[in-house]
C-alpha cells in the first residue's frame, strides 16, 4: 500500500509517541517573526532552557514594520520595541535574522522560499497560520501558537497529532483571467471554512502540475482559511527549478542527492487518502468574497446572496455579513464602490503577482477616489521589481509603491482602513476588523481583480477591464 507525502515526512520526523498519543515531531525548519516570538524567548529563559539548534531557526520582521517611513526608531514605540526585542533575542541565541538593513527582509512566508530555506520533505513551523504556504514545496508546514514556538526553540520538536489527508484534484486548464487565487477561493467556497479541520490538504491534478511555484504558494497559503492547518503540493521539476541556486539550496553533489530525496518523498501513485475531492478548472471563474469569512465567495458575475436562500447552517453568519458589509442581497457584485485597493500580502505579494498586474495597467490610472497601494512581499521582490521597471509602472498608474511587509493584510502597522472603507484586497482574510478598522470592509480577490477595481473605482470583471480573452 502506497504512502502519501505526509506519511513519509511524518515517519521520518517522528521522535517518539507521547504519553497522550500525539507525536513528538521534529521540526526541521523554524521560522519566527516579531509578533509571536518575544514571549516564547521569554518562556525559554524562564524555564532555564536555551535555543537547542539556533541554525535551524530563521527570523525576519513583517507584521509591524511600516511600509512607508521605515527609518528607525519607528513612530510607534510599541512596534519599535518589538523589532528591537527580536534583534536582541536573535543575537543572544545565534539565530539568523533577515533584518531590515539586510536587504533580505520581508514577509516570513515569502522570505523562506526565496532564500531556498523552504525545501521539499521537510517539516516547518512558524507562529503564523499562513505557514501552510511552504507546503507548496512539498514540505509539511504548520502554523503554531507561541507556546509551541517555545517548544520548537527549546526542543526542535512539538506535540501534534497526525492529520488525515484529503486529496483535492483540480484538473484542466484555467480560463484566461482566472488565477490560482480564484482556485483556492473556489475550493474554500465549496468545502467550507471548517471543512479542513483535522485534515492536511494535498493539492494535485493537472492544473496544479501546470502551476508555477508561486501560484502553488498562493493556494497552499490559504489552506488554513479552509480549516486545514497543512496544505501541500507534491514536489516536481517546477519545484526543483525554483530552488536551484538559491542561497540556502544545496549545492554541487549535495544538490543531486537532495533532488533524489525530494523526488522520493512525493506521494506514491497508489497512496491511500482519507478523502478525495475533484474540481474542474474550466468551471472556475474570477471569484471574490462578499462577506466576513473567506468561504462567503461568489463568481464575479453573481449577485450578493440572500442569506435566507443559503443552507440553514450558513444563514446566521450570512446575515451578520450583509449587515457588516453594508451590502444589499440580490444586487450585483459588479459595481460595488471601493475606497482602497491593496495589492500585496503572503498570499499575493510575489514578483509574478506584480508582473501580471503591471502588464495590464500600463498607461491606465487609478480612479481618483481610490487609495491604491502595492506592497512587495519582500525586499528581494521589491528590488527585482524596481529593476524591471514595475515600480515605475505602478507609480505612473497612481499606486503607492511601498516597502516590504504584511501591510494592510492585518491592522498591526500604520497601513489600515479608516472607518467603514471598503477594500479590494489580494490578501487572505476578510474578517470583521481584520484590516485595522473595526467597521472596515474587505473583499478578497486576485491581484488582477484588485487592479481592475482600483482603476474603475468599483468591483469589476478584470477580463472586461483589461480585455483578457
Amino acid at each position: 500500500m502506497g504512502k502519501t507525502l505526509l506519511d513519509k515526512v511524518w515517519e521520518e520526523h517522528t521522535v517518539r509517541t507521547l504519553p497522550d498519543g500525539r507525536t513528538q515531531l521534529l521540526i526541521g525548519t523554524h521560522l519566527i517573526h516579531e509578533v509571536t516570538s518575544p514571549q516564547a524567548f521569554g518562556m525559554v529563559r524562564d524555564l532555564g532552557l536555551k535555543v537547542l539548534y539556533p541554525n535551524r531557526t530563521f527570523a525576519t520582521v513583517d507584521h509591524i514594520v511600516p511600509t512607508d517611513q521605515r527609518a528607525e526608531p519607528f513612530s510607534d514605540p510599541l512596534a519599535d520595541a518589538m523589532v528591537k526585542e527580536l534583534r536582541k533575542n536573535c543575537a543572544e541565541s545565534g539565530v539568523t535574522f533577515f533584518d531590515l538593513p539586510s536587504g533580505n527582509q520581508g514577509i516570513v512566508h515569502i522570505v523562506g522560499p526565496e532564500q531556498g530555506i523552504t525545501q521539499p520533505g521537510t517539516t516547518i513551523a512558524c507562529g503564523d497560520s499562513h505557514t501552510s504556504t511552504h507546503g507548496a514545496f512539498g514540505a509539511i508546514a504548520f502554523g503554531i501558537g507561541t507556546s509551541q514556538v517555545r517548544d520548537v526553540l527549546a526542543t526542535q520538536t512539538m506535540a501534534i497529532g497526525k492529520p488525515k489527508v484529503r486529496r483535492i484534484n483540480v484538473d484542466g486548464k484555467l480560463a484566461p483571467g482566472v488565477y490560482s487565487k480564484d482556485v483556492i477561493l473556489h475550493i474554500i467556497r465549496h468545502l467550507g471554512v471548517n471543512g479542513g479541520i483535522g485534515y492536511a490538504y494535498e493539492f494535485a491534478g493537472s492544473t496544479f502540475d501546470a502551476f508555477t511555484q508561486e501560484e502553488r504558494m498562493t493556494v497552499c497559503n490559504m489552506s488554513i482559511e479552509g480549516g486545514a492547518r497543512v496544505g501541500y503540493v507534491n514536489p516536481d521539476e517546477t519545484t526543483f527549478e525554483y530552488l536551484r541556486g538559491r542561497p540556502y539550496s544545496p549545492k554541487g553533489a549535495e544538490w543531486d542527492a537532495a533532488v533524489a530525496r525530494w523526488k522520493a518523498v512525493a506521494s506514491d501513485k497508489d497512496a491511500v487518502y482519507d478523502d478525495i475531492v475533484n474540481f474542474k478548472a474550466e468551471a472556475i471563474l474570477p471569484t471574490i468574497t462578499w462577506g466576513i469569512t473567506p468561504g462567503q465567495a461568489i463568481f464575479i458575475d453573481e449577485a450578493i446572496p440572500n442569506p435566507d436562500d443559503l443552507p440553514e447552517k450558513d444563514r446566521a453568519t450570512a446575515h451578520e455579513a450583509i449587515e457588516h458589509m453594508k451590502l444589499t442581497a440580490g444586487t450585483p457584485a459588479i459595481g460595488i464602490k471601493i475606497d482602497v485597493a491593496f495589492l500585496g500580502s503572503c498570499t499575493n505579494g510575489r514578483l509574478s503577482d506584480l508582473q501580471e498586474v503591471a502588464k495590464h495597467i500600463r498607461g491606465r490610472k487609478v480612479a481618483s477616489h481610490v487609495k491604491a497601494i502595492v506592497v512587495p512581499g519582500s525586499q528581494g521582490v521589491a528590488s527585482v521589481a524596481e529593476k524591471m521597471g514595475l515600480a515605475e509602472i505602478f507609480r505612473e498608474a497612481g499606486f503607492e509603491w511601498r516597502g516590504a511587509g504584511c501591510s494592510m493584510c492585518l491592522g498591526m502597522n500604520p497601513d489600515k482602513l479608516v472607518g467603514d472603507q471598503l477594500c479590494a484586497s489580494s490578501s487572505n482574510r476578510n474578517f470583521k476588523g481584520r484590516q485595522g478598522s473595526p467597521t472596515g470592509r474587505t473583499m478578497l480577490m486576485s491581484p488582477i481583480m484588485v487592479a481592475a477595481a482600483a482603476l474603475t473605482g468599483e468591483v469589476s470583471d478584470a477580463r472586461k477591464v483589461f480585455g483578457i480573452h
Partner: protein
Amino acid sequence: MALEKITQVSGCGVFVPGDDIDTDRIIPARFMKCVTFDGLGEFAFADAKLAEKAAGRLHALDDSRFNGATILISGSNFGCGSSREHAPQALYRYGFRAIIAESFAEIFFGNSTTLGIPCVKMSKNDIADLAALIEKNPSIQVTIDLTESKVTTDDVDFAAEFSLPGHAREPLMNGRWDSIADLVDGLEDVKTRVATIPYLSC
C-alpha cells in the same frame, strides 16, 4: 513540571452567539503589539463590543448580568483564522477557564489546551438549551466534568454530553497539558533522530 489536574470546571457561563468567530475578533491585532501576554484580558472582544454598542446593542461581555462568567459558550468553528495564542491568552486573563462550542478551529484548540483551557464540543441544540438557561438565570452554575464527558447545571435538570479528544482530555486530567516537560524528556531521542535526517545532519 507539576500542573493542576483539570477534571472539572465549574462557574457561571456566558453565551457569545455566532459561528466562525475568528481570533482577530477575539483579540484584534493592534493589541498584539506587546512582548508579554500580560494585560490582554481587558481587550478580549474589544471591537465586537464597540460594534454592538454602535448598533445600539449590548455585547454579552458588556452585559453586567454575566460579569464573572468563567465558561464561554459559542457556535461552530470557534477560534478560526490567525494562530495567535494571544486569543486564548486574552480569554484566560479575562477569566475564562473553559469553552463550550459546536466546534473549534484546530490551532486555537491546541493553543487553548496548552494553557489548560478545556475546549469541549457540544451539539447545537444542547448549546441553545444551555444558553437559554443562562439567559434566564445568569447565576446558574455550569459544570464541565471531564471524567463523565457531561455538562450539567446546578438548579435545573440539564445534562448534555460533550466530546473532547483523548489527546486533550488525558493531559488535562493528568496535569500534563503543557507539553514542554514531555518534549524535554525526549531530548536524547531528538538528537538521535536529527542525526538520521540528511538535511539536518549535513
